């Protein structure tokens, strides 16, 4: 493997960048082609379907707003997964931390009624991050201390979180009405819609700003992506996270505590997932109910894998999945193709991205032993 003797790890090396994004792009194209084939076999017109999908996701400001709306939690959950993956940790239970984040935001939001927005919103977001981190903490400790696999433990905690939320919305936090949900958050705790920032006159003059339901959570997500990128690139925290992920033995020799890094990594991953839950509650539903997340934590896995765990690449990857989910309705309406095809395409993307990892693995021809737990 001497062809790439002078591989560079950063800087604007366009060849390297092309190589890096080449396979995810190819995976998406391949998945779309196979998806099209499935549609064609099932008697649908894939061209019509995908153009309707495009219409429904990017075709109008409102459609784009919908894409942003759905991408927002995906960016945050994807960032959480990516940060864990960087330390060789698979936080498959991001969905549970997302639930706890949503719960914390809702509960605190209701409690803080009457507080001004500049106090309420930051406090809610912080509370959600803490709740997500706390929900990841026990799996993290179990992983670091006795090597219990985080895939199993975080998954178990996901279901526990779901039942906790489902109990609270029919019990202690229940709205006096019939529906199992909390009361509406006070308006100070809600993330405003993007178009509400502009006056009616402005919107009349510039209709391309009518982003529909898209809310300021997207700003939170974009900031989080940039911050995480900076953390990974410019802080000792990120450096240690990456070192442990690549080679725990060398990290340990360099004086890095593998156990403590594992705990920090999973908790940060959980905090980001918690944030995803909060923006969904604060920006979309403005209340908590037990189906408030449509599996964003799980789709976040696909997002992180497709982005190859790069925090900035998480943004386009999340936009892609967000667009698919936003446009699926239009696709069904216009081209009559069942929305579920989107899930099939998503699964195919994961298969191909994972299989690509295998190809590079073979090319490297270097088998490295990574301990299942480090003690």
């Amino acid at each position, binding site marked *: 493997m001497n062809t790439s003797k002078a591989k560079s790890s950063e800087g604007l090396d366009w060849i390297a960048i092309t190589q890096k994004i080449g396979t995810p792009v190819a995976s998406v194209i391949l998945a779309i082609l196979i998806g099209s084939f499935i549609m064609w076999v099932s008697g649908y017109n894939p061209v019509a379907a995908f153009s309707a999908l495009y219409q429904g996701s990017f075709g109008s400001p409102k459609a784009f707003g919908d894409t942003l709306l759905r991408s927002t939690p995906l960016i945050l959950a994807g960032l959480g997964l990516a940060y864990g993956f960087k330390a060789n940790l698979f936080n498959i239970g991001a969905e549970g931390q997302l639930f706890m984040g949503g719960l914390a935001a809702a509960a605190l939001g209701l409690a803080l009624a009457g507080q001004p927005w500049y106090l309420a919103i930051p406090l809610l977001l912080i509370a959600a991050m803490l709740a997500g981190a706390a929900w990841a903490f026990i799996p993290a400790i179990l992983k670091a201390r006795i090597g219990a696999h985080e895939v*199993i433990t975080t998954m178990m905690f996901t279901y526990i979180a779901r*039942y906790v939320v489902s109990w609270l919305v029919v019990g202690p936090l229940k709205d006096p009405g019939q529906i199992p949900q909390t009361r509406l958050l006070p308006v100070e705790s809600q993330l405003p819609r993007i178009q509400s920032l502009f006056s009616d006159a402005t919107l009349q003059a510039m209709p391309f700003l009518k982003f529909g339901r898209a809310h300021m959570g997207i700003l939170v997500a974009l900031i989080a992506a940039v911050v995480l990128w900076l953390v990974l690139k410019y802080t000792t925290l990120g450096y240690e996270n990456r070192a442990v992920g690549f080679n725990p033995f060398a990290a340990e020799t360099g004086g890095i505590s593998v156990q403590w890094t594992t705990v920090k990594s999973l908790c940060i991953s959980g905090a980001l997932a918690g944030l995803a839950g909060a923006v969904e509650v604060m920006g979309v539903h403005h209340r908590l109910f037990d189906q408030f997340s449509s599996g964003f934590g799980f789709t976040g896995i696909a997002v992180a894998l497709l982005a190859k765990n790069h925090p900035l690449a998480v943004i386009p990857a999340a936009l892609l999945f967000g667009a698919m989910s936003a446009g699926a309705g239009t696709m069904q309406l216009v081209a009559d193709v*069942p929305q579920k095809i989107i899930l099939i395409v*998503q699964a195919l993307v994961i298969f191909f991205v994972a299989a690509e990892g295998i190809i590079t693995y073979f090319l490297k021809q270097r088998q490295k032993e990574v301990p299942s737990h480090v003690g």
Partner: protein
Amino acid sequence: MLGDIITPDLFASAFRMATPLALAAIGGTICERSGVVNIALEGIMLVGAFAGVAVTLAFGSPWLGVVAAVLAGVAIAAIHAFTSINLRSDQVVSGTAINILALGLTGFLMEIMYGHPGTTEAIITIKPVFRFATERGSGTFFGVIWNWFNTIVLSHTPIVYGAIIIAVVAQWAMYNTRWGLHLRALGEHPRAVDTVGVSVVRGRWIAVLMSGALAGLAGANLTLEQVGSFTENMTNGRGFIALAANIFGRWTPVGSYSASLLFGFFDALQIKLQIFRGEINIPPQFFLMMPYVLTVVVLAGVVGRAVGPAAVGKPYKKG
């Protein structure tokens, strides 16, 4: 009061609830014992459930549906086997993809076959094996005993009994046959198995396919014996409870069954308690989360360590 809750049908219901969990859990046991993690049980079960209903609707025979469910489970498991064993892909990633694929595939097929999402029309379900009168002489002591026995033991459909038989047979086979010995060795030290001339790839493929068949059968039980129709995402996390039952049962078939029975009992109890909400105010969610809480407790080593096969999740490379 307590007598209204602790009734024979509570226990009968526990066995019914346990069956899909147990079948998938035993599948998980076999798969993990061979060294392959299978978090795709959820998706495989869902595909099995759908295939069972689709074939039953098409041909009118639920038994044909059972066969279809098993075959569909095997087919989906084959994808997992190929990516995990041959491509040496990350087994958790592959399982995640299969779960998403199953959700999409069943939903998609449902709409193109029946023209609507949600729930299929009802099918003829598989009837209980025995049919004895339930209230035979309920006044006498023996009458009461008979009623309990009849309801708890004799009221079930074939796959419910099948699951018990499978648990026992799998347990026996795991410790008494060549297949079982090779399986137990595969997940611990694949190289040791390889050096005595037993194929690791073949052994693991068989195990993954068996887990697919069992999870498919679990799906068949759910739709063809219990619910009588297919609803999107109807497995609703049962695959993950099955995974938990496998751990709670310490990676043995009978252990998996027993854990599933315990989890099934919690489920039956919470349903029962909902009738008595006025008097007893334990939220049903408390029981529903028990399987997961207990599994974490076991993994944490609070009641003895739960240690899986040493080589589980690690792709094997020859040479």
